[in-house]
């Protein structure tokens, strides 16, 4: 466990000056900022809108690209960047001659990638809510403050996080085995396209395909029901696609460990 924690801290130390790390912070910041500017300049068109619809417009603009493109590509990129640090510096050999178990080294890297994705999605929630409320302050005609969807957004993004597990584990392993960028990127891009097509065509078995999960997570989600006076969005977290994603990630993670264990460092 100590080896794992030390390795995890070292991952942060190594990556804190790389694009891989900053992408997790800058991506949500820039996208939310852009949206903020967009809503700010077009505020008169949106002024009459009911608060709930306003939030759905605001958050939905991001979510629309999130499932189909942004999240899968971000996951592919993070999986690559965490491993490429070692490929580029040729440091696998020195990493595996340290008195730290291979499991710790491998698991720390995997969970660090997971952490970056979590961080990125958490910041999306934070910035969406933050900029939404900021809009109601600077443009009082936009009534963002009259409806609260913090809880819904948090749940929704958490579901997106879970839906990325399958892709992450596969891309992580590909990036670990292949030192170049194009191979895992190419495979990931192709699989994402297939995922988007199957999910949007509602192919009955697409829940078995991890690259379709982010899309499915959003697609199956919003059941608009009316409970009492306020319309509610109910999110079912553990749908069968999420369960498949978690299972796939666990299996690939364990499989990857045995590959790392057997792996000879050339």
């Amino acid at each position, binding site marked *: 466990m100590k080896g794992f924690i030390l390795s995890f801290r*070292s991952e942060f130390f*190594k990556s804190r000056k790389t694009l891989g790390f900053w992408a997790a912070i800058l991506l949500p910041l820039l996208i939310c900022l852009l949206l903020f500017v967009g809503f700010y300049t077009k505020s008169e068109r949106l002024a009459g809108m009911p608060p709930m619809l306003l939030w759905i417009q605001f958050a939905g603009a991001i979510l629309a690209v999130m499932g189909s493109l942004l999240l899968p590509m971000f996951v592919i990129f993070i999986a690559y960047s965490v491993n490429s640090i070692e490929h580029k*510096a040729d*440091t696998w*050999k020195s990493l595996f001659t340290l*008195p730290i178990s291979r499991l710790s080294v491998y698991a720390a890297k995997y969970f660090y990638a997971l952490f970056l994705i979590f961080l990125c999605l958490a910041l999306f929630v934070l910035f969406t809510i933050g900029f939404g409320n900021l809009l109601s302050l600077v443009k009082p005609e936009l009534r963002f403050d009259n409806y609260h969807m913090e809880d819904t957004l948090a749940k929704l993004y958490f579901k997106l996080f879970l839906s990325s597990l399958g892709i992450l584990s596969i891309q992580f392993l590909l990036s670990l085995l292949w030192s170049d960028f194009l191979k895992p990127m190419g495979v990931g891009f192709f699989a994402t396209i297939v995922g988007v097509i199957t999910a949007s065509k509602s192919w009955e078995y697409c829940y078995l395909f991890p690259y379709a999960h982010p899309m499915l997570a959003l697609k199956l989600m919003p059941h608009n029901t009316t409970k009492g006076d306020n319309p509610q969005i109910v999110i079912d977290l553990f749908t069968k696609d999420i369960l498949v994603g978690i299972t796939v990630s666990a299996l690939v993670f364990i499989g990857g460990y045995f590959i790392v264990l057997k792996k*000879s*460092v050339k």
Partner: protein
Amino acid sequence: MVIRTEGLSFNFGSQQVVKSLNLQVPEGSIYGFLGPNGAGKTTTIKLLLNLLKTQHGSIHIFEQELQKNRISILSQIGALIEQPAIYQHLSGKENLLNRALLLQVPVKRVDEMLDLVHLSNAANKKAGQYSLGMKQRLGIALALLTDPKLLILDEPTNGLDPNGIIEVRELLLKLVSQHRKTVFISSHLLAEIERMATHVGIIDGGQLLFQGSITELEALSQPLIRIEADNTVDAANLLKRKNYPVADVTDEYVYVPYTSKKQMGDINALLIQNEYVVFSISKQQKDLEKLFLSITQNA
């Protein structure tokens, strides 16, 4: 023995790159692991560090079996394999800090190491901008960071200028004499090893051709009489007629295997009687370079 291997063999596919190696590295030694490029040196080192899985034979380090005691053994080894593994986007100091963090070494040790390898002035420069020699020195600093009992260095002077080579050599000698370290160092340059090693293993084609102390290696080389004369070819012919075996003839020198001082005097007298001008005559150890070549070529 700090390192002891028995019948260590390794195949890449169908090609056997290490053949039944029996290494014996005593404590407190500088063990020079010599061989031409592609002899199997790096493969052996990777086996010793458990980067490659042992296929046949056994490896004991500090008298412990490697596979079963991997972590405890590795915690006492500092290693430098081929080109040093350095994060180019971090500074030299950050590279050391990262390693110190991983291995829980006090931060002040980082500055000591920078000092030791003369990188204090370049500590905050990105390692990607380091020269090859600086990278190599940073690699050595990384290997020394935990104050390990055993240092395994794969061609550590590669890319260093003569000054750098001398510095590394002095550093290693100091570590062994003052801190009782054991150093296992590979090289394809005999001249470099000859000046510091206490023990030598010579490998070629994956096979260990010689192993022993440096004096044992020197004993293998037969001393020669080197004669500097005016007409070396005729002089050599004369010596042959008088039943002296001639080892070698060049434009300047004739070489005859040495047996005794009297023999040297006899040869001198013989040449002078036959009106050859002898400029000099001396006893000479066959240099290790030639010995190395003859060992690796006879295999």
